């Protein structure tokens, strides 16, 4: 049990800066997910916490103690790797107990700890098997078991579910969450999958190009992204971005997205947006906020008709795609309300959930 802190940490590989001066505080027992596209520096950050990479500058603290020069084995951390990294010549029991045996724990205690961890992960029957005889999900459990038995200060997960098929991934995701609720160890988890990040994390750290874009709870990131990158990265399907311009419309504002379409800006936002009238902006709205006209108290001026290009039925909802100006826009509608491709459809844009982005610095206004 410990908190983890990064202070202006930098990692350079030759002349490439993989991690650019990031700072992050992770309190005790928190589950933090580092998420971002490949090459954003998330794995490197995790490996620096583990001690597998040296930080080029800045400090890494575990439990308030600077660990930059402490080797991995003395940092009291445990790590779960993407490809499990189980020792192929050892049984599950031997795999899980390897760390304890190296640290010369008494035999009885090793057995007790391994059995306890096996029970948490429901792998008691597998203790005598070798990794080769296990399925992907079972191997992942063993890898987690190897981390749990050590009872470390910090758990580190490096894309642990990427090698599993979709169904198993969802199952193991729940499993990881369940284990964390039981053992309550501070956890840093790396993934490129934003759904994984949202479902698992107490707090999500969105990284891009070696920098932290935003830190926040999943809900914060979803509803109040600070940058265009976060707005586009969090949420699936991704947020629609359409070039737009703010215009004065009587006492209020309206948002013009094309010659044909202009929508009234909700009164609660007019003051915030007023300084940006006349500027070229990017209008962001999630597909779930463009629907068939529904809900009480909607502004009829935000309804519009489009010709659908593509219709993708998903079962419980249907994605429809249409073009505004030169941009393709996705919308999530009730399957019964969807028209066919090439046909017109009446849609409603709920601007209470809109985001306006300044293209000059990609910041959300």
């Amino acid at each position, binding site marked *: 049990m410990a908190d983890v802190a990064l202070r202006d940490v930098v990692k350079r590989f030759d002349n490439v800066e993989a991690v650019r001066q990031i700072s992050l505080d992770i309190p005790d027992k928190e589950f933090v997910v580092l998420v971002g596209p490949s090459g954003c520096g998330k794995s490197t950050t995790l490996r620096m916490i583990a001690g597998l990479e040296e930080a080029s500058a800045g400090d890494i603290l575990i439990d308030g103690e600077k660990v930059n020069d402490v080797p991995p084995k003395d940092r009291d951390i445990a790590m779960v*790797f993407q490809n499990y990294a189980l020792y*192929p*010549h050892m049984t599950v029991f031997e795999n899980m107990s390897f760390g304890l045996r190296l640290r010369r724990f008494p035999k009885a205690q090793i057995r007790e700890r391994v059995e306890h961890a096996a029970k948490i992960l429901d792998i008691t029957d597998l203790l005598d098997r070798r990794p080769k005889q296990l399925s992907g999900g079972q191997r992942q459990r063993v890898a987690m078991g190897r981390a749990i038995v050590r009872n470390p200060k910090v758990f580190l997960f490096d894309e642990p579910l990427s090698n599993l098929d979709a169904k198993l991934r969802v199952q193991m995701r729940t499993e990881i969450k369940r284990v964390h609720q039981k053992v309550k160890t501070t956890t840093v988890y790396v993934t490129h999958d934003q759904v994984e990040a949202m479902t698992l994390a107490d707090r999500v750290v969105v990284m891009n190009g070696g920098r932290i874009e935003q830190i926040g709870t999943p809900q914060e990131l979803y509803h109040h992204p600070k940058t265009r990158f976060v707005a586009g990265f969090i949420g699936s399907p991704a947020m629609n971005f359409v070039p737009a311009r703010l215009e004065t419309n009587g006492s209020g504002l309206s948002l013009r997205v094309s010659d044909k379409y202009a929508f009234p800006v909700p009164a609660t936002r007019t003051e915030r947006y007023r300084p940006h009238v006349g500027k070229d902006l990017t209008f962001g709205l999630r597909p779930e906020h463009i629907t068939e006209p529904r809900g009480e108290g909607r502004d009829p001026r935000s309804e519009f008709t489009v010709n659908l290009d593509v219709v993708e039925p998903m079962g419980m909802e249907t994605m429809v795609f249409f073009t505004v100006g030169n941009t393709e826009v996705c919308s999530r509608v009730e399957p019964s309300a969807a028209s066919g491709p090439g046909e017109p459809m009446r849609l409603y844009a709920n601007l209470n959930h809109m985001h306006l982005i300044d293209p000059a610095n990609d910041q959300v206004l």
Partner: protein
Amino acid sequence: MTAVTATSVPRVRASRVQGSLQRGRRWALVLSYVFLVIFAVFFLIPPYYMIVTSLKSNAEVAHLSSNPWLLSQGFTFEHFRTLLKETDFLIYFKNTAIVTVCVVVITMVVSVLAAFSLGRMKFWGSGILATGIFLTYLVPDTLLFIPLFQIVRGLGLLNSYWAMVLVYPTLTVPFCTWIMIGYFSSIPKELDEAAMIDGANHMQMLTRIFIPVALPGIIAATIFCFTVSWAAFVYPMAFLYSSDQLVLTVGTVTSLIRADVYQWGMLMAGALLAAAPPLIIYAFLMDYYIAGLTAGATKG
């Protein structure tokens, strides 16, 4: 009508493709068998000839009109008996065994440690060193024995089989190191990282993870090393001369060929007995050997 054509055409095409695949496979098999049989016969002729000759009496060997491929006058173990009782064959055998065991142990210790450090602990110049080690393997022993002669004499080891323990590793260490570098690099990097986090130091990582995981490779390297030192000829020929120091390869030839008198029966018996240990080791470890040579080709 169109529906019928639409369904029947692909079916015909599919069966044609399948048919040609089967035919192709059959041809490939036939060719494989033909060449394998040719090779097997070709390489089994010398051992067969050795067995037949070693079991013939001297009279039959010398008899020019008898068929050299067949035992026409019964068989005798006389050559084996004379070889073991009346020559220094057993001394050569013992010397060879001592030299080989020592060389195998030295080689494996050196090359496993070298391969682990060169392949896994990336350090400045490790790449160049690894290539350098392999280059030394490319210098043939037929050239090396001249400078090595000076060194061996300088060390006072001329005409001592311990000189072999010193010089054979120049042949075996580079190749075994090279094999082991390849084998170690096929072990995923995460495995040592996991071990490092679990608390292993480099020595523990090597002994508890790498050696057990790379065992097939180590066995392959061991077999190679065993074969090289068991069958080496040039170095013992150059450095050894008295019969209490000779090894099998040179001893058998020098003691059983006197000027132009070839004791064929005993030569063949000696060759057979000398070939037995490698044969037995291969037979037991063949599966490992093949697994070791093909490791790293695919990520298992």
